[in-house]
């Protein structure tokens, strides 16, 4: 997903939020299925073979959510059979399936979000709105690996003095905690040196600006507009009640009016947008190569 990872963070964030809002808060079989398919394709393209390892987990989760739903919900008018005197209804089973599709769709999109929206993009986006906190985030991100290394050093140093080497779980928790406390002392002392370095470079003056390496190109603007348009269509659909779909007491029919088709198509395109971009990029690159 190189093509998608290289566009402007603002566009990426808008895109993920659009997809996540629809996939999380809509409850429509067609849209939710589209979100799931988009999520699967995105993660597969991102991680390649590595993604296959998680299939087992997702399948189990799917069955868990789908199968257990009728136990919690006895609404619906089409009983399939009775369990401990409670009806297991067709509607509840179908709702369970939709729920499972939604849950897994959302998890996959969150995973894709985590892969694409790396911390520097996140910091850039919030750098303007909350500059101080984004600086705090940036510092914390810098400290974590340094602290991790130092805590390893401390525990090795203690081990080589024959201290804190008990094997039982309580000993280990205690040792870890003591090393951790020593770490806090160390980190705060160092932090004060860092604050000196910040002041020495003029931190605290009024009118601090925010620098980033990201540039907003015209193509990013086009993509942003497209993204917002494709997002607004299902939202309008929701406002007009087109995407309203209920399971209880009886499962609705899936609408096939032209307006509904437009909504399905728009969200389908949105969910597949990164994939389409990737394919486009590959084609462009191939043409370019063949011309050389």
């Amino acid at each position, binding site marked *: 997903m190189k093509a998608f990872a290289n566009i402007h963070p603002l566009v990426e964030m808008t895109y993920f939020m659009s997809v996540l809002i629809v996939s999380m808060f809509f409850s429509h079989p067609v849209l939710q299925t589209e979100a799931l398919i988009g999520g699967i394709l995105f993660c597969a393209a991102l991680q390649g073979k590595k993604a296959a390892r998680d299939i087992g987990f997702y399948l189990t989760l799917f069955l868990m959510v789908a199968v257990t739903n009728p136990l919690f919900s006895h609404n619906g008018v089409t009983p399939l059979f009775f369990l401990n005197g409670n009806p297991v209804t067709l509607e509840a089973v179908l709702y369970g399936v939709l729920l499972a599709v939604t849950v897994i769709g959302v998890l996959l999109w969150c995973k894709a979000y985590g892969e694409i929206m790396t*911390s*520097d993009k996140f910091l850039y986006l919030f750098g303007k709105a909350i500059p101080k906190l984004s*600086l705090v985030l*940036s*510092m914390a*991100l*810098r400290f974590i*690996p*340094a602290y991790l290394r*130092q805590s390893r*050093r*401390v525990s*090795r*140093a*203690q*081990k*080589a*003095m*024959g*201290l804190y*080497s008990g094997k039982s779980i309580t000993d280990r928790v205690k040792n870890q905690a*003591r*090393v951790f*406390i*020593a770490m806090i*002392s*160390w980190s705060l*002392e*160092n*932090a004060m*040196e*860092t604050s*000196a*370095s*910040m*002041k*020495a*470079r*003029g*931190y*605290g*003056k*009024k*009118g*601090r*600006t*925010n*620098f*980033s*390496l990201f540039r907003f190109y015209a193509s990013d603007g086009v993509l942003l507009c497209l993204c917002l348009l494709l997002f607004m269509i299902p939202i309008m659909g929701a406002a007009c009640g087109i995407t309203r779909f209920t399971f209880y007491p009886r499962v609705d029919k899936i609408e096939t009016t032209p307006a509904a088709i437009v909504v399905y198509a728009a969200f389908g395109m949105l969910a597949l947008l990164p994939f389409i971009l990737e394919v486009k990029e590959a084609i462009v690159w191939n043409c370019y190569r063949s011309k050389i």
Partner: protein
Amino acid sequence: MELLQVENLSFRYPKAERDALHQINFSVNAGEFILLCGVSGCGKTTLLRLLKKELAPVGEKSGRILYESKSLNSPEKAGFVQQNPESQIVTDKVWHELAFGLENMGAPTEVIRRRVGEMASFFGIEGWFRRKTDELSGGQKQLLNLASVMVMQPDLLILDEPTGQLDPIAAADFISTLQKINRELGLTILLAEHRLEEVFPIADRVLVLENGSVILDDKPREIGRKLSPCHPMFYAMPSAVRIRQGLETNDPYPLTVREGREFLERNFKGDTQMPTEPKLPEGDTAAELKNVWFRYEKDAPDVLRGVSLKVRCGEVFCILGGNGAGKTTALNVIAGLDRAYRGKVMIGGRTIKDYKGGALYRNNIALLPQNPQTVFVKETVRADLAEISEAMGIPKKEHKNHIEKIAAKLGISNLLDRHPYDLSGGEQQKCALAKVLLSNPKILLLDEPTKGIDAYAKQNLQKILRGLSQNGKAVILVTHDVEFAAEISDRCAFIFDGEILSADTPQKFFAENSFYTTAANRMARGLWKNAVTCEQVIECCRAEGARL
């Protein structure tokens, strides 16, 4: 043109009994390279911090600091670089770190982009411009700190022991970058340093600080002449100066290796022999590695490839080598922190695997890590020492006695009730050493013990280690510091690419090397091949002088 003037500056910390700085007067001309030196605690850092308004310590101040004849001093005018490369970095990305100062000044994106790009290419940072700051080496980090101060286009650059935590190669690189900035950009530099070998010759002027007063302010060559050999700072002087000081001639003071060599060759013929070779201790074998192989992970490359060495009781053994050659790993394998996957590690005649539980670290082996701060976990030095006494099974009543005995031995009795982090680098190291020694080891391992401590503390450490080895302890140390190794060790070994290439007495060891050797040896090697330390060179000269 005078850029900076300090007039009658005195400073006293709150609740202190005497002035940290007393009646300091000096001035700095634009474009000068000034070196500030003095033993730890002489007031260097206080003085430098007072020159930078944002970092000025709290206390009673009198006198004036004038900057271009005004008392104002805005942050972009004077850049400040501190000792620890790690703790000065604020953000997580190299490019963001470079931009940080300009962001604070409120510079617009386009200006920042240009200046950051310019600096990155001047300092050769392009290659790691988009990297995480955490992944950089110490030398790169310090270079980044320098560059991120330089983007603010200061008129004066103040550096407080910037190479203290770097290995000699990175330190030399850093110093030559400073020289480049001074020569090519005409930037005024005020540098405090304790490793003077490289800096001393390139400075325009040297200020020597003692107990908060400037005792000398002169050209480097004159400082060499004026500084008494009894002064604690003398040990930090470049080898050429120290050798010249030990001899009675009227020649001007040489500063660099080249000048020193010319000086020696002009005056001596080198037809005497280096006096007696020291005898090697012949104690029992304390530690032995037999064909040891080690790697960190299954698929990672080998870090140690068939290392074999033998260290005897009463011996000081130095392992030298470049970064990543496997020095520290070898030490960790001896310390039992890393396990060799092939080969044998014998400690006191038994294989290391036979030591169960903490037995290896009781009356056997102790390791002083590179960063002494990793040793402390308590609020006072005393509490830290008590902790290990308890672990050693010493009855509570005897703790006090026991601790005070070792404290007196290492000269830290007055530090026992202080917080470890309030001590200077040298003091921290002595306290850490005390904690480590309380386990009464037969073998003491030290990782880079001279890092971040000044020449005076180094000499002190040398005395302590000598005393330990005379008591029959084996001391194994890993270091980059060839001068220190030459002075302290009975034998030196060179490790490269995971293998020990040679192990011999320092005289033979350094005589065989041509680049990786002490400055004194580089000066004298044409005359006396195996004179390694300044004292040995002086001894040879005197022997010849006496004969002539």
